[in-house]
């Protein structure tokens, strides 16, 4: 049985939606995949019934500020402030260093939280939602 530690993960991103590049200095990522449930309980039924509905995802990436520029990391941390976002940005969230276990989707960066605290490293937290299919290769 194989176990994985958090540092084996990574994040790749491409704002143009073609070839994703590694986001530098990533500390963590998370993704929640949610499926709506549709109530199909018949009148007179004893037990409630549900079927699955639309699937969506949302998540967070936390990275450290490194003053990087002219690369995908810079695009990643500034994209929340960009106009005309059509949701074509490519996200790849990896669970292993070999790069074979990943979650892929297009998405929209919905918020970016920039912060500086005395005595701590400066971090940026990016929140996103998925757009369209989510592919799980895990």
């Amino acid at each position, binding site marked *: 049985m194989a176990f994985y530690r958090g540092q084996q993960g990574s994040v790749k991103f491409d704002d143009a939606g073609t070839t994703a590049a590694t986001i530098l*200095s990533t500390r963590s990522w998370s993704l929640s995949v949610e499926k709506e449930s549709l109530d199909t309980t018949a009148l007179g039924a004893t037990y409630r019934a549900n079927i699955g509905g639309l699937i969506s995802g949302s998540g967070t990436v936390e990275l450290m500020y490194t003053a990087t520029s002219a690369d995908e990391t810079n695009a990643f941390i500034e994209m929340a402030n960009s106009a005309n976002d059509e949701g074509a940005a490519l996200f790849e969230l990896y669970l292993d260093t070999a790069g074979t276990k990943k979650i892929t989707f297009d998405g929209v960066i919905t918020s970016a939280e920039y912060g500086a605290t005395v005595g701590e490293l400066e971090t940026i937290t990016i929140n996103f939602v998925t757009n369209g299919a989510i592919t799980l290769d895990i």
Partner: protein
Amino acid sequence: MAAVNLNTVRATVEGRLATELALAPPVPVVFHNQPYTPTPGSSWVQCLVSFGGNNYLTMGGTTGSSNSVIGVVVCNIYTAKGNGPGANYTIGKRIRDLYNRVIVSGVHFDPPTGPEVVAAPSPEGYFQTQVRMTFETFEDL
């Protein structure tokens, strides 16, 4: 990028102190694992650099990742016994000012602690205080 060179960090810490204490009025300084026989009643400083905790900073394997390397500088300041703390604190201020929140060659120094009076000086026969500061440097693999 490469694994951190501990001797480069050590040289950054020690070189800074050696340069400062060579200025007038000069104060002898001795580092880890160096023999030194102090002149009785004289002033001198012992500087000890140690590395401690290392932490994950970023995701990634043995390449394209970063670690935090933490260390501590302990400076024992010895001055003549029976003459009050003034001379000792003067040296302490020089050392404190040298590292206080300074970032040099990628080494980030935290605010110093001390000079704290050491109740039982070692070696005996001196008035001893101690200035300590932690530092952090970053390893990019």
